């Protein structure tokens, strides 16, 4: 499972850099996404095609100067879906709840992930992305503002189980707070 992640990450990075091209990207996206005009005839040595398309996630991207890409760069990439084998698995989620206590996640992120030193997991909002792959990466490699890296300390399998548990907590819509009533209550929409 883990071996697929670097590729997934690469696609992510590429889409970020491409998105700075703003409106031009939108024009490209107008093309028929089901029949991609794809030029994958890269020759040995350098990419020579002048216009290429590839799919990153669900959006269409244009590479303007593929000749600048290193030799062998795959111009057509099929996104590899990152799938958590334990997603939605009730037994795994129950085990994840135990790991969450056992590895001291609870004392940072709060009981039931309600938020304390670390961010809440109940609000459906994600500091570093909430997809199974994102959550796996946050646990595996840690995050810059204090989340420790657990990769190599616990098994990848346990990280997937924790991922399933953490994602199962996101349930509350906390968008609106109305303070004007007599009782204090929070309302969603």
């Amino acid at each position, binding site marked *: 499972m883990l071996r697929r992640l670097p590729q997934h990450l690469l696609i992510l990075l590429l889409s970020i850099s491409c998105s700075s091209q703003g409106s031009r990207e939108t024009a490209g996206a107008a093309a028929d996404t089901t029949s991609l005009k794809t030029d994958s005839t890269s020759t040995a040595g350098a990419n020579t095609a002048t216009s290429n398309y590839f799919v990153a996630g669900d959006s269409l991207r244009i590479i303007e100067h593929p000749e600048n890409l290193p030799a062998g760069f795959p111009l057509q990439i099929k996104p590899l879906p990152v799938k958590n084998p334990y997603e939605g698995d009730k037994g795994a989620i129950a085990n994840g709840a135990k790991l969450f*206590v*056992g*590895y*001291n*996640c*609870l*004392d*940072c992120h*709060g*009981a*039931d992930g*309600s*938020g*304390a*030193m*670390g*961010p*809440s997991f*109940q*609000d459906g*909002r*994600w*500091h570093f992305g909430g997809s199974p792959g994102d959550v796996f990466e946050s646990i595996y490699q840690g*995050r*810059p*503002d*204090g*989340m*420790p890296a657990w990769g190599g300390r616990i098994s990848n399998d346990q990280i997937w189980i924790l991922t399933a548990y953490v994602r199962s907590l996101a349930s*509350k819509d*906390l*968008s609106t*707070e109305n*303070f004007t009533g*007599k*009782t*204090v209550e*929070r309302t969603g929409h």
Partner: protein
Amino acid sequence: MKRVLLGHAAIATLMAVAACNGGDKGATADSASGSEPQVTSGAATGTASTSGARIAVAHAGPPGEWQMPAGDYASSRYSELASITPQNVANLRVSWAFSTGVLRGHEGQPLVVGNTMYVVTPYPNVSYAIDLAQTGQPLKWKFRPDNSQQAIGRACCDVVNRGAAYADGKIFYNLLDGHTVAIDAVTGNQVWRTKMGDLSRGETITMAPIVVKGKVIVGSSGGEMGVRGWIAALDAATGKEVWRAYNIGPDKDVKVGPKFKPFYAQDRGKDLGATSWPGSTWKTGGGAVWGWLSYDPALNLIYHGTSNPGPWNENQRTGDNKWTASILARDADTGEMVWALQVTPHDMWDYDAVNENILVDLPIKGQMRKVLVHFDRNGFAYTIDRATGEILLAEPFVPMNWSTGIDMATGRPNVVETKKTAQDKNVKDICPSLEGGKNQQPAAFSPQTGLFYVPTNNLCMDFQARAVTYIAGTPFIGGNAPEKGGPGGYRGEFIAWDATTGKKIWGIKEQYPVWGGALATAGGVVFYGTLDGWFKAVDARSGKVLWQFKVGSGVVGNPVTYTGPDGKQYVAIYAGIGGDMGLLIAGDVAANLPYDVRERGTTLPDIARWTSWGGELFVFSL
């Protein structure tokens, strides 16, 4: 230290209780009244007896300046400035304000040296030098330290900083990531930077240093991270470590030697800092020094408290757990321990003893005594002989029920059996809560009235301890402690206290815990701020609120006063809700974190109606 984790079960219980009491009560009233725990002792009320009371150490520098965190080594937070009086304080107006550019909890206070004000922010611990002599208060310099981002997630209770100290032309303060820095007060250039704490083991630094005889005294936070607490001295000129004393472990490390003469018999013996723990559990036993420091030049003693033992689950560390939850007196030159008083032996409620130790000379039973007055998290106000560590008087200053009083023969609290916490038990309605009768918010003392002005909390808790494993860099807690308002329908009170009799003289009840510190002035006016953002001026004798102003965010900082270049008296206070109470307990008062939209806490569910995050200095004058 302090933090609260709320489980669904606890929230449901509180809501159920509130419903039984009538669901449509006013927002502010209902959370405070949920279920009132039974309280065995509260603060008694009396009248002040003040003759001859004095602060032990003079104000640092000219009366119009504020050179160290509490204004003096005695931690009095008293100023001789007297232009602002009960008669004219109604005319107090905002003179100017300054945004620090940083959100999160603004604990601590600015310094004023000459015509310059120095401000240190919460993480990333930026410092500013503000020119008071020019209109518009332009900056002289701004210093942005190298400060590891990892520290944010290793700090238990918000990324606060409690301020800087000035000495010898330099500004000294601590960085959250465990460094101490010295900054040239004129140029803003970094003179030195020394790594003191190990972030990978959960050592962050939030406390304000003091400078004693050319040494900068610092300690670390991390009582919730399984640190082994220490206090250290650095050479102010070079940043080189001169001494470091641990608060737990063998005598050699704790600096217990021939000078050590504790007052009580149970505190005498070899290696108590290690033998009062099972096995090697002392190595991760907490006892951090994250609170305020005091110094008595005549005795050459530094006074500091130590934090809770780790983990919270007492089952994993049977014994007294020395010297956690203690007040320690150390030789300023060497760090050697001279006396120790463990105010909460084998703490099982997270009652850190790091609150300030105020050094005053008071008439007690007809005799002037050199004392140290300490308002502990455990709810007792101690009047202690500061030369020997003998408790002269200890009375509850807030509602409490975990102890029936102090055994004066041993100095130990008599603990109520039913309030002892234990692994896998839910012990209900313990008062005060783990936030303590008072937390870091420092009190002030006025020699004019002989009274202490004390910001307090009135909260209770249920305590659920569980087994926990030590994993370096993660919390070492093993407990949840949901809180609720204490008896009486208020959650905080600003009180005046007579430490010669152990009596409360007056009190101002507040809707929220009073998490900001106090300032007493010779004008007879006392200042403090509230969590919902009111900055208040109070008559020091009567406790009457004479003036108040709603600042931009809840106040968790401490007021200071100074004389401006124009000769006028100014009063300055940080606004900026945060700290443990503001950030963790209040829950969601932030607006700039789209990726973290928390449910409001149950302890202060209504605070977000009154305030939100901010970081701003307000300066007032007549």
